[in-house]
């Protein structure tokens, strides 16, 4: 990649469209995002994004690092609240309920919109307690047997049950990286969320572990909406039905994944997927 190329694409604002090209909107939107911007103190990280996320679809967000895709993702379950200087403006509606509203209670929201993070972050507790954590705090199980049931089912759905069923009382941190990440997914699905946000879930994992997680994503997408931010274009191609391309805090293009990778509408997208910068 040459510097001149890079400069041309990064500096030429004329290339950046007012609104994302392609098909950003959907008839059956689970989450409708309108005019969303995010700023850290006085630095704007995400600029006026309009996007619909369809019910039970897997949508991938790609783009060069620092393009704002992770920041955008964290708006969807208000995780940006944890950062003092972060300000989110615009409207994010899930099933016609405004999410980006200071008065909205984030606790039930986050129970509905779960999140899996870049680095596996199991709690320093046993495997069982990691998965049981969500159901316990939300009061989802009244009896021990119910809780056992939830833990087992979640671990099965995360494809981890057979590997850990004999050592549920061992610390979650004793698992391998891939297992830890699947544990975090199991932990998330134990509270039966409607949407799962995944922030580069495989970036710390080896290819075999990655394949397992991708398989898991496909299975979960039967009844859960999944928004996945990824660094890997191949991964986006493998798991998602639609792909959104972010560039310097702006949403450039949204299209069916197949189309984005074979025949993108925008030249920046094309430049990115053909590896001219990244």
């Amino acid at each position, binding site marked *: 990649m040459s510097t001149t190329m890079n400069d041309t694409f990064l500096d030429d604002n004329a290339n950046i469209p007012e609104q994302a090209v392609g098909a950003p909107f959907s008839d059956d939107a689970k989450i409708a995002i309108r005019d969303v911007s995010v700023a850290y103190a006085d630095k704007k990280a995400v600029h006026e994004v309009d996007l619909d996320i369809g019910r039970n679809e897997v949508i991938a967000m790609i783009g060069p690092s620092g393009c704002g895709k992770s920041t955008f993702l964290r708006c969807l379950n208000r995780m940006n609240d944890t950062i003092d200087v972060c300000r989110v403006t615009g409207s994010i509606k899930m099933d016609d309920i405004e999410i980006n509203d200071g008065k909205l209670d984030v*606790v039930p929201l986050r129970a509905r919109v779960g999140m899996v993070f870049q680095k596996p972050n199991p709690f320093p507790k046993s495997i069982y307690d990691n998965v049981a954590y969500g159901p316990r705090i*939300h009061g989802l199980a009244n009896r021990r047997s119910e809780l056992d049931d939830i833990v087992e089912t979640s671990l099965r759905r995360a494809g981890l049950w057979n590997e850990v069923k004999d050592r549920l009382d061992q610390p979650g941190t004793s698992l391998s990286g891939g297992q830890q990440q699947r544990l975090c997914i199991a932990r998330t699905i134990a*509270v039966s969320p409607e949407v799962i946000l995944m922030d580069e879930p495989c970036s710390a994992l080896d290819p075999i572990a990655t394949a397992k997680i991708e398989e898991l994503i496909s299975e979960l997408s039967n009844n859960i909406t999944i928004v996945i931010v990824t660094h890997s274009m191949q991964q986006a191609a493998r798991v998602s039905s639609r792909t959104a391309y972010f560039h310097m805090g702006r949403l450039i293009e949204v299209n069916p994944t197949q189309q984005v990778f074979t025949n993108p509408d925008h030249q920046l997208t094309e430049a990115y997927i053909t590896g001219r910068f990244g």
Partner: protein
Amino acid sequence: MNKFDPQRTSALVEASLKRRYRAEARFKLYGVTSIGIALLALVVLFTDIISTGIGAFRQTYIQLDVHYDAEVLGISDARNEKQLMIANVDGVVKAAMRARFPEVSSRGDRRALYSLVSVGATFDLQDELKQQPDLLGQHKTYWLLADDDIDSYFKSVQAGESYAGRVSEKQIEWVDALRDSGDIKTRFNRRFFTSGDSAEPEMAGILGALVGSLLTLAVTLILSFPIGVAAAVYLEEYAPRNRLTDFIEVNINNLAAVPSVIFGLLGLAIFLNMFGMPRSIPLVGGLVLTLMTLPTIIISSRAAIKAVPPSIREAALGMGASKMQMIIHHVLPLAMPGMLTGAIIGMAQALGETAPLLMIGMVAFIVDVPGGVTDPSTVLPVQIFLWADSPERAFTERTSAAIMVLLGFLISMNALAVWLRRRLERRW
């Protein structure tokens, strides 16, 4: 019922919210309460000290017409040192009191009357006569130092508080008479800052203890700063990763948490008994405090050295500087503000330390202001301890005042450290 139905989850979550937010509010309340307790303790402590101590900065004086009567004094020449030594200045003061209250006649009443004025007044007049021998035979009006009980009584009258103490009815009458004629008043208590300890509260000052503290701190600083920095440089720049280095580090970390009284035992056994050094001197106090503050200084100096970017070391070595040159020319100057900050904090710690100094005999009653590190002396915190133990009411006031002075020093030292740290932050 399907446990993985999102709607069931939503319903259950909603149902749990009220209870959970109550728990949240309770938890936050614990936090606020804890901070409240800590801040309340701070406020109570400071108001208590200040309200008891503020009075000590003023002192009651009584105005009297003094006649330097050669007959009463029993001397003929005030220029003669020897005569002056034995002069009955006390008699002059008593005569002045009798002249002021001529109606007092019985012996017991007279004794009570004389005790209105402190013995310190006698010393002051003796000095005055020494300075101006021509006063012999003359009259002059002075504001004389009042006794501590009269001082306490008069201050409580001024403040409009009730007083229960060792002042008799008669004495109260006399003080009221003095007050009516404007012959009793409080003035700034200069003596508190210019004299050493005394058995008489009205004459006691903190200068001796303050000088003792400064001498002790000087010894501590001169020894602990170079040694601490040297040790830190060795551990950061030279020390190989081996058992010995580990052992040194464990020792430093542990010594930082050893109770200070143990260092006192060390000083007593090693410096006093083994080396036969004298008791109560700032030199030994400084040695003990050096050993005590070394860990603090080493730990903070190491942090300061660590904060110097490795690129600067590489640049110096790349120019062909030797390791010693690299350290002396580059690392030490850059780490200096951080190391000074650590040293100041260590000194503040040493300034407030009491227990180890008790062990090496710095609790003696010492009137003279020490002139060097081998003169017997006490230090400010020990002076506070001694005064706190004294039964006289007036000493309580002075204890609090001494505490205010000590805290003033400590707060300025810490402020200096904070200022230095800010400057340090600006550089990187």
